[in-house]
């Protein structure tokens, strides 16, 4: 008897949990205007949720953004470090549980996570054009203002910074840098075992494979391909062939690959490899400043350009302080904060500002920022910048690489 009751209760509890899925709570209202937000947000605490794995990034938030946000707008910043997948799971649960008043005001997001959050209705908006500095500083026609990894943004997020895949080599050890896929093959042939790349799904390794796809078949071809494994395989086959052609000249004859970019970096810094790569464009400056690499370290990209992506901030549907969220985002894309973020001593992340919209002094602020040694100037990075493709294709390409290159 007790057994039956317990089982029935358990099933009932399970069902009760699933029923929650059906109802969709209405988002709480945002501020009526940006000026109203400025007024009502004063004295509040704004909660920022985002990846907390980088000391430099945390330092920028805690010691640059937080004090100036408090002194300029009277808002206290509370930063909660949490990985984006956990953030989305938490929001998703709150969505199902009809919790209209959550804990997060601003989240740090991009790519496939943005796609998931947007399609599951976890975000507040559209709101971006209502942020004063967005209207003032951001180019509305820029590709990354409108698309995040090929996903239409539609006002649901605001760009915070730009990253770009770069390659690094020591000019004292390598006199000619490979600035195309063909040159890479040639150099790898001459310096057998001295080149390799991290195995996807490592983020940087995955970007490198896409960069090779752009080199061999072009961005348009893969961008226009449907989200379908067979179709994508047909389109990228020449690039897969190229990677297989490169393979015997790689480290360990390409029988294996470094598991992540940290392993690649370590092998490069210990002299095992002739190059390394990073999705942090000013990485070389950081390595030289930390004395981990010689001053002869140089950054380079392919002549046809390297993949870049943009990372964004968004407001969850159940943010309790949308007014304060507006002001924080406004502050994050101010010239002062973007310049401080660019400083290699802080974070070394590229600004999202449209330089042509800035005043002479504002441009000078950006130009006067210390970006470190051995790096490429921002202008060159921006002209040799290729967009990301749709987030869903990224996973398919990673799978194809595994089947056609790694396991072949």
């Amino acid at each position, binding site marked *: 008897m007790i057994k039956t009751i*317990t089982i029935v209760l358990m099933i009932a509890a399970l069902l009760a949990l699933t029923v*929650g899925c059906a109802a969709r709570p209405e988002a709480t209202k945002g501020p009526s205007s940006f000026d109203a937000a400025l007024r009502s947000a004063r004295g509040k605490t704004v909660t920022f949720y985002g990846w907390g794995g980088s000391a430099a990034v945390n330092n920028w938030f805690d010691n640059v953004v937080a004090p100036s946000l408090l002194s300029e707008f009277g808002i206290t910043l509370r930063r909660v470090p949490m990985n984006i*997948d956990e953030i989305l*799971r938490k929001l*998703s*649960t709150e969505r199902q549980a009809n919790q209209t008043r959550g804990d997060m005001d601003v989240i740090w997001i991009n790519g496939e996570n943005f796609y998931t959050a947007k399609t599951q209705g976890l975000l507040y908006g559209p709101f971006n054009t209502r942020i004063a500095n967005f209207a003032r500083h951001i180019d509305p026609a820029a590709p990354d203002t409108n698309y995040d990894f090929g996903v239409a943004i539609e006002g649901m997020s605001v760009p915070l910074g730009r990253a770009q895949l770069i390659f690094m080599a020591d000019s004292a050890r390598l006199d000619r840098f490979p600035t195309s896929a063909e040159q890479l093959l040639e150099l790898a042939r001459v310096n057998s075992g001295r080149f390799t790349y991290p195995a996807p799904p490592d983020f940087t390794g995955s970007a490198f494979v896409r960069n090779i796809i752009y080199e061999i078949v072009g961005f348009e071809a893969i961008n226009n391909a449907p989200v379908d494994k067979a179709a994508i395989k047909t389109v990228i086959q020449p690039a897969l062939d190229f990677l297989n052609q490169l393979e015997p000249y790689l480290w360990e004859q390409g029988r294996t690959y470094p598991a992540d970019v940290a392993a690649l970096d370590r092998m490069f810094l210990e002299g095992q490899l002739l190059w390394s790569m990073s999705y942090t464009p000013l990485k070389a400056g950081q390595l030289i400043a930390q004395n981990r690499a010689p001053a002869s370290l140089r950054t380079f990209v392919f002549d046809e350009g390297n993949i870049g992506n943009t990372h964004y901030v968004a407001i969850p549907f159940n943010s309790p302080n949308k007014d304060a969220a507006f002001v924080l985002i406004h502050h994050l894309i101010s010239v002062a904060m973007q310049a401080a973020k660019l400083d290699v001593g802080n974070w070394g992340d590229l600004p999202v500002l449209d330089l042509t919209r800035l005043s002479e002094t504002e441009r000078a602020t950006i130009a006067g920022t210390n970006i470190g040694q051995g790096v490429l100037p921002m202008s060159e990075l921006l002209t040799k910048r290729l967009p990301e493709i749709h987030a869903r294709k990224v996973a398919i390409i990673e799978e194809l690489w*595994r089947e056609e290159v*790694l396991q072949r």
Partner: protein
Amino acid sequence: MKAASKPYLLAAPLVLFLTLTFGLSFGYEISGLTLRHFLAVLWNRDFVVSLVATLSVAAVATLVSNVGGAALAFAMLKARVGGEWVRHILQLPVIMPHLVVTVVVFHIFAQTGVLARLTWWLGFIDDPNQFPLMVFDHFAIGIMLVYLYKQIPFVAMVCFDSLRGISHRFGDVGENLGATPWQVATRVYLPLLKPTLMATALITFAFAFGAFEVPFLLGTPLWRTLPVEAYLLHINIDPDAQARSMAINVIISAISLGLALVYSSALRVVSHVRHSDGERP
């Protein structure tokens, strides 16, 4: 009543976990009971490779560490060492966390590690790439080194205690009747040690089978053990991958549970035999 419902309450999380695997989901909009995710996992080539690899790694680690550990215990008994300080030396690897051993193994055996530097200094190699790949390699040498370093002393300690508990008169009688030391070890002590070895084998196998951090940090990208595969699916934001990750977790638990059942019944048979004919006065 409290006592009667307790097992069901304890089992509730497992039921919840299993239901999630079969598709009843609270977070994402995929629902309905389904075997789809299990089939997707089972039909995947990567999963089969991964399952075989995980079982092989665990089997080899178990075999080598139990044979090695038992041999070490015999040797200690024979040499009459086993005092306090020997036990402390054996305890050291046992209490060291796997993560620490993993880092140590990496720093010693990597292509730019201590051993590689030593061979370079001695003039055997002139480039780190010439040093054989012993971590991140296809044969799981690095992973195996961690398991063996941790498990051989563990097995040796347990077996040594067990051997000391067995009266040495059995051995003396054997020797008196003309048995060689090898025969004494294999015919007299080994059968008596069987229940102990079955227990240590179960523990070592279960650990090597379910361990995450060691293969995650020292494994090759070419094949991945099941726990690593489950983790990579878990951090994938695709809701379908979440369900597949859960399915792999259930499979790992099922295999571990199945092995535990097989072992416990085998153990019962072994100890029954021992009681019925071994220890009769």
